[in-house]
């Protein structure tokens, strides 16, 4: 995939401020471009979905991509956030901004509760436990009628509001038009990107990657694996909780049907498709997996078939994900193995000196 490498190479050699400016201008300018098409509100609405899934993918990327903890129940935290908004908004009249911190803390807390008993588990075993956990949350929501109205769902959730200056002075403006929600989602995506990409390059991020690569070695190097794994669970969950609030107030209706295992799998697919551990990769994965089915709408009943085939194709061509890190891959060819052995022996010689 030379084309990807060349592009990535060109991009990474530009100065940081140029890259920043280009991304911001592109993101802010998209709604203007959409006006040129015949369906601007539809495009904006799809992009709001893209934004929501981008944040979800970035959150899951902390857990799966960085720490290597295979979580199949991730959507449960999203559900916690969405239901926090639904219940607090319709029953107690809380606004969007009031619910945000509550949802983050609640989802993060539940992340720790899930994380604690599963600490000794790895790989497949962890996947099964988290899968069960995701189902427990969904079935609880479906049965806790007095709080969640069960399968009937909760309707009439208020849209997010921002202070706005109009001719009547300072007012609370309800954001329900897709363009308005787009900019709001953009703020969330930007925030999540800033946090997760800095996290990845921090001491914590490196420690998480070390745990992913070899937990015992990481522990031997003095990394507090227990604390860090819990932290990974909690922070990943908090992202899902926060964006769940946006989801609930955008759709205005939540019901347990929106939080099935399939959703967890889709978010996981975004992380894997984009490239495990890569923050931008997770965003790209989310973009592709939301936009592709929309582009294929013209094929009506065949669209999911084509969608699935396209996914298989990508994974065959690039098993480490589109923006996956080549170096973290297992050496596959004899030549690569030989190179790796050589570099290892070189390091050994360095150590002797």
């Amino acid at each position, binding site marked *: 995939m030379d084309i990807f490498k060349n592009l990535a190479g060109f991009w990474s050699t530009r100065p940081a401020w140029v890259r920043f400016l280009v991304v911001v201008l592109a993101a802010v300018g998209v709604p203007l471009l959409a006006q040129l098409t*015949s*369906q601007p509100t539809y495009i904006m609405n799809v992009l709001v979905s893209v934004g929501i899934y981008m944040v979800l993918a970035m959150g899951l990327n902390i857990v799966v991509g960085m720490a290597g903890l295979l979580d199949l129940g991730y959507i449960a935290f999203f559900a916690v956030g969405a239901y926090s908004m639904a219940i607090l908004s319709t029953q107690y009249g809380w606004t969007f901004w009031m619910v945000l911190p509550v949802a983050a803390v609640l989802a993060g807390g539940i992340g720790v509760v899930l994380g604690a008993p599963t600490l000794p588990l790895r790989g497949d075993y962890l996947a099964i436990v988290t899968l069960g956990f995701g189902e427990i949350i969904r079935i609880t929501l479906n*049965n806790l009628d007095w709080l969640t109205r069960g*399968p*009937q769902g909760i309707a009439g959730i208020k849209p997010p509001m921002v202070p706005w200056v109009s001719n009547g002075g300072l007012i609370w403006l309800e954001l329900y038009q897709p363009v308005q929600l787009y900019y709001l989602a953009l703020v969330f995506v930007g925030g999540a990107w800033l946090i997760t990409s800095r996290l990845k390059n921090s001491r914590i991020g490196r420690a998480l990657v070390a745990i992913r690569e070899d937990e015992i070695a990481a522990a031997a190097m003095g990394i507090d694996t227990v604390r860090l794994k819990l932290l990974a669970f909690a922070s990943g969950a908090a992202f899902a909780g926060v964006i769940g609030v946006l989801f609930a107030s955008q759709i205005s209706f939540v*019901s347990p*049907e929106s939080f099935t295992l399939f959703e967890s799998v889709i978010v996981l697919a975004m992380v894997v498709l984009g490239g495990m551990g890569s923050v931008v990769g997770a965003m790209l994965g989310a973009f592709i997996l939301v936009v592709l089915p929309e*582009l*294929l709408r*013209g094929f009506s009943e065949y669209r999911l078939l084509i969608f699935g085939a396209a996914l298989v194709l990508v994974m065959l061509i690039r098993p480490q994900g589109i923006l996956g890190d080549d170096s973290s891959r297992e050496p596959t060819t004899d030549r690569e193995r030989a190179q790796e052995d050589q570099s290892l022996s070189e390091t050994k010689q360095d150590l002797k000196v």
Partner: protein
Amino acid sequence: MKRRMAVGTVLALTLAGCGGETTTNADGTTATGGKIFIGVAGPISGAQAVFGEDMIRSAQLAVDEINAQGGVLGKTIEIVPGDDQGDARQAATVAQKMTSTDGLVGVVGHFNSGCSIPASQVYKRADLVMLSPGSTSPTLTEQGFKNVFRLVGRDDQQGPLSANFAIQQLKSKTVAILNDKTAYGQGLAEAFRKSIEAGGVKVVIFEGVNQGERDFRAVLTKIKGLNPDSLFFGGVFTEAGLIVSQARELGLTANFLSGDGTQVQSFIDTVGTKSSKIFVTGVRTINSEEFLATYKSKYKESPTAFGTYTYDATRILLAAIARAGSVDRVKVTEAVRATKDFQGLGGTINFDAKGDPATAPFDVFTVQDKKFVTVTPTA
């Protein structure tokens, strides 16, 4: 090289996707010339695809009829399908697509209540009228939106009908109630419980089963011990069929009552010979022979119960456009609201202030010779 080709294929697919998009848009812009668009939104793919497919087919029949007579306002009608996969998020996206399609004046849909409710919010903001053929949740029309209508009766219209039948015709004194913990099944079971309790009948058990389960013997054995006169199930035909056959195997002979989700031929197939004492409420069909015959000759299958509602919904929408004399969305909504004594397949249709059908188009059916037959009120 192989890889390049594969990439090329993906690109081609994507471009083809884009291509499809632009053609619809192009159609959209020509709408002012010779076409009027109506949206039909439902679960065209996914687990409930059978209903979505049926909606498209039934709406197409209504559209074909009108187009054969020269269309509406001198323009031909074309359907814009919207696949919500039975998912709330998808439904909101589909709704946005419908509202931003030029020349689209109304939507027949959505099917699931969980889709119709979030979609109705989007349609309301765009003043686009929606007529749901399948969403029975009371919440949909209780939101107070002026643009929302439905053809199917609400859970709290159908439940009482079944309850009254149990009280008056079956003279039940004790009932057991099961539901499948879905919005539809639970809503219906709650409505049934409310009115049967108001009628002085004792509810011995009210319990949920999980959709997708196949063995209900545990809960049925428990019910048998409580010995109710009647058993009500809020849910759809798959579980209902199994519940009836397993109940009869266990020697539970109580009357079996259920709603329109059960009025499907495969329910009768599952039940087989154990078809006595089954009473389900379902779509009233009095003038539908012609529709059923046309449907069968065109698609080689019988429609589901919701096909008739979709057909009626489409015809009401098209009649409203004709009466409004305009493709203005607000005027069409008003015209739908003003619908008076429309001759539907299940009888006369009027809407009440909330957008619900004024009289619930339901009858009680029982099974005879592997067919659903109406129970005459005097029986």
